[in-house]
């Protein structure tokens, strides 16, 4: 079965894709060490100056904001996604399970533009939420959601939730139902079973998924761009601003590299912790 020819035949295309990934990253890193020549797309010689730029208030604050927004989004995502993922895995009624999976996963596949545009309609001054609030007389003037961190985070939670639900549902489906049943048979209330059995058993999945969502959220571009309206900036917006609108490829490259390091680094940092949690769960 383990025919070497098949291996060779299959490994070559895989290596080509891996090579493409490496090349795109290498290009970003290469440019981040290049000197910026104002007004030109060509770059000068080797320099570390682009990295010092990150210490300047604008970049530094945007990087901090990005980390904060991504972290808050990941936490809200976790809180909102867990019940849905739980329902998705534990529901026995076939129609309900299908409905749950389609409603919760579809937003992932409609794309960022469609979803961001939709949130502009929901959150705008004459949008859906404000129309309702005004019609009910709860507020007399439209509430400002657009161009605020709050608005951006609401839309980002929605942006990242489908992925979170997939990841959590995978984790929950690994929990053997017998543990929950056994606890219930011993007289534990459903909420207690959930809190004392299900949550601890899925803890490795919870931690891992939250970090993945943290990284995933940093990818968002259209959401902060259109809902943040220049008032809320994330790294992605600066890369675009500096790269495609000011031809400063080196600084755009540094910022891209920073985002890459933050995303991959946070996963690498958490990995040992997740492994330890997994071991503890396995022992129980």
């Amino acid at each position, binding site marked *: 079965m383990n025919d070497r020819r098949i291996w060779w035949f*299959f490994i070559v295309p895989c290596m080509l894709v891996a090579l493409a990934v490496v090349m795109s*990253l290498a290009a970003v890193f290469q440019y981040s060490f290049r000197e910026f020549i104002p007004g030109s797309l060509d770059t000068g010689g080797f320099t570390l100056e682009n990295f010092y730029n990150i210490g300047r208030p604008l970049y530094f604050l945007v990087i901090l904001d990005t980390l904060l927004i991504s972290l808050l989004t990941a936490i809200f995502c976790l809180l909102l996604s867990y019940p849905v993922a739980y329902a998705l895995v534990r529901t026995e009624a076939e129609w309900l399970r299908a409905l749950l999976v389609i409603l919760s996963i*579809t937003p992932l596949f409609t794309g960022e*533009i469609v979803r961001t545009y*939709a949130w502009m309609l929901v959150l705008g001054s004459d949008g859906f939420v404000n129309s309702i609030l005004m019609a009910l007389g709860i507020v007399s003037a439209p509430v400002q959601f657009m161009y605020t961190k709050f608005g951006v985070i609401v839309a980002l939670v929605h942006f990242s939730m489908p992925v979170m639900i997939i990841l959590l549902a995978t984790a929950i489906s690994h929990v053997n139902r017998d543990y929950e049943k056994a606890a219930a048979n011993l007289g534990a209330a459903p909420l207690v079973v959930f809190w004392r059995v299900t949550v601890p058993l899925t803890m490795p999945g919870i931690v891992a998924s939250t970090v993945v969502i943290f990284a995933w959220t940093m*990818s968002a571009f259209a959401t902060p761009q259109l809902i943040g309206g220049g008032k809320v900036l994330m790294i992605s917006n600066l890369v675009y601003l500096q*790269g495609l609108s000011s031809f400063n490829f080196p600084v755009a490259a540094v910022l891209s590299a920073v985002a890459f390091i933050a995303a991959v680094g946070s996963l690498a940092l958490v990995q040992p912790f997740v492994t330890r949690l997994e071991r503890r769960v396995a022992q129980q």
Partner: protein
Amino acid sequence: MGKFLFWTLVVAILIFLTIPAVVVIMSSVNPTETLAFPPKGFSLHWYARAFSYDDFRTSFYSGLIVTFFASTIASVIGVAAAYVTHRYAFRGRRLLEFLLAAPLIIPRFTTGFGFLLVGAGLGINNGYTIVIVTHVVLVLPFVTRSVYVSLVNVDRSLERSAANLGASPINVLLRITLPLLTPGIVGGWIIAAILSFTEFTASLYVTSYATQTLPVAMYTYVREYTDPTIAAISALLIITTTLGMFIVDRTLGLKRVLAIESH
């Protein structure tokens, strides 16, 4: 009581997930340019505009070209990737797995910007090639995941008996294993196609005017016009995707395609 509260919570969250789609569909049939809730009537005016607008037509076709090639190539490579990582132990396997899955966590704009730079270096930024390569890289992890789950579930005894009857390894692969993987491949292809067709951030960097895909054209439009034409296109995309999801779920099982279930 607890159960009731739990389901109330789930329903509330599902409303949060669904409301943007509902609002888009409502706006798309609203006859006036300004938003109104509830809509002031019913009109297909914005749909007519969406279909007659040049940029949307051409970018729709460009998108189909990119999507077709990207998801098909990704499906072929996805089978290869799932097969070598599941069936073989070799040096560098972990690294290969990491590199192929990495585009899931590498920020999209880093990937897009990286390929823009690579494309500029090679002078190929005007063509479809760079767009397709970028999309293959981005959707490959989803296909690989789908095929991998099918591969885990393949009954190895079928392969073994075929081999015992004298079939060559390549014959076993072609006649036994691949047919068993078909649902996983088809499911992965569909997921890849939808993701590629709606991919935006990386596409913004690697597309040119001639190769711009639908989401990029939509973004350009949103920047310049405020009318609900985008709502009409969005509504069509939402409805098509929901139907697609429904069909995948009925025929292949969404949970399996997305590898939510491990058994």
